[in-house]
């Protein structure tokens, strides 16, 4: 019984860690996409202005 509780707790920690990693990945992807969009606007704007 005790072994099973320990295993469940261990898997809970693993799930939480995975969720945290997933959250960090989402945030990083969001920042990367925002920066890409930002630079896209600037570069396209410059291109249009000079044409």
């Amino acid at each position, binding site marked *: 019984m005790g072994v099973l509780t320990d295993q469940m707790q261990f898997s809970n920690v693993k799930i939480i860690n995975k969720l945290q990693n997933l959250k960090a990945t989402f945030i*990083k992807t969001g*920042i990367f996409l925002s*920066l890409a969009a*930002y630079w896209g606007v*600037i570069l396209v*704007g*410059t291109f*249009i*202005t000079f044409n």
Partner: protein
Amino acid sequence: MEVFLPIAQVFVNPVEILLLSAIVGVLSGLFGVGGGFLMTPFLIFLGVPPAYAVANEANNILATSVSGSTTHYLKNTLDYKMGFMIVIGGTIGTALGIYTFTYFKGIGKIDTVISLAYMYILAIIGTLMLVESLREIDREKRNLVVKKKLHVHYWIHGLPLRMRFPKSKLYESIFTPILIGLLVGFIAAIMGIGGAFILVPAMIYIIKMPTRLVPGTSLFVTIFVSVIVTFLHSFNYGSIDLMLVLMLVIGSIIGVQIGQKLGEKIDSSGLRALLAILLLVVGIAIAYDTFFAEQIQTEITGVSNSDLNFFSTFILEFSKDMPFFYGLFSILFAVFLGVAAAFIRRFVSNFKKKILVKS
């Protein structure tokens, strides 16, 4: 309440200018960055034409860098020899910058060039700062320690004509500081900034100066660069407006003091990401203004000379009749304000120490 700027020929709200320059001053004091690359876009947003915003911000930077440099002079944290080498490059760079400025002003594209230059500079600095601060936060979370190389050699270190710089304990080619100064001078002349955001990392990572000498020497170089920029703008275009300069200097000097005090009390490394986001937001606002906003015709204010007060009439006539002396006067005015601020700061800190000792 609005004030008419006799040289820039626009009405501005002095409270807004004082408040914004104080906020930018706080950010400069807190993060150790020059405020030029934020204040000039703010002036443009407030309706000051870009060519005037650049020139007047350069004069404001002169006052704040004189104030900061006097403090470092009193603490003996300045490398004059290295500073003069950078100034040589800075002088050539400024002359090239003014030449470029004149060219674009001649073809009527100077406002677009200034806006684009700001947009790209803010976007680059904002992106680098954001990435670096996020990495820093990530490392702190994971408790990672990054081992850095003690010496990284670039092609710039292989340049000839080496010279000793005893104060920095360096044996460096004279071309290294001259090339860095050239870049800083060129950018300062076109954008009306001090260039500390290039100078400081270049002094630390490329020249490899001791960190304690970097802020003072950077401010020392900025004095000369901004003197040349102010004088050339004033003499060539008569674009220095002492009324605007006075407001900018008062706001930024008070703001810098508050920022430095705040910096001693709070850890600003976490706030660096916020500054990066602010830079990116200002950058995109300029982009919107340049690319997408409909061209709004600047309202012709139609204020005749007889409607101006004594101070405005004096500034207008002085700049028109004697541009050379007006340029010199603008420089001396900023230097006087800067030195006065430094001595007031020293007096206040000595006074506080005396009170603390007594209590």
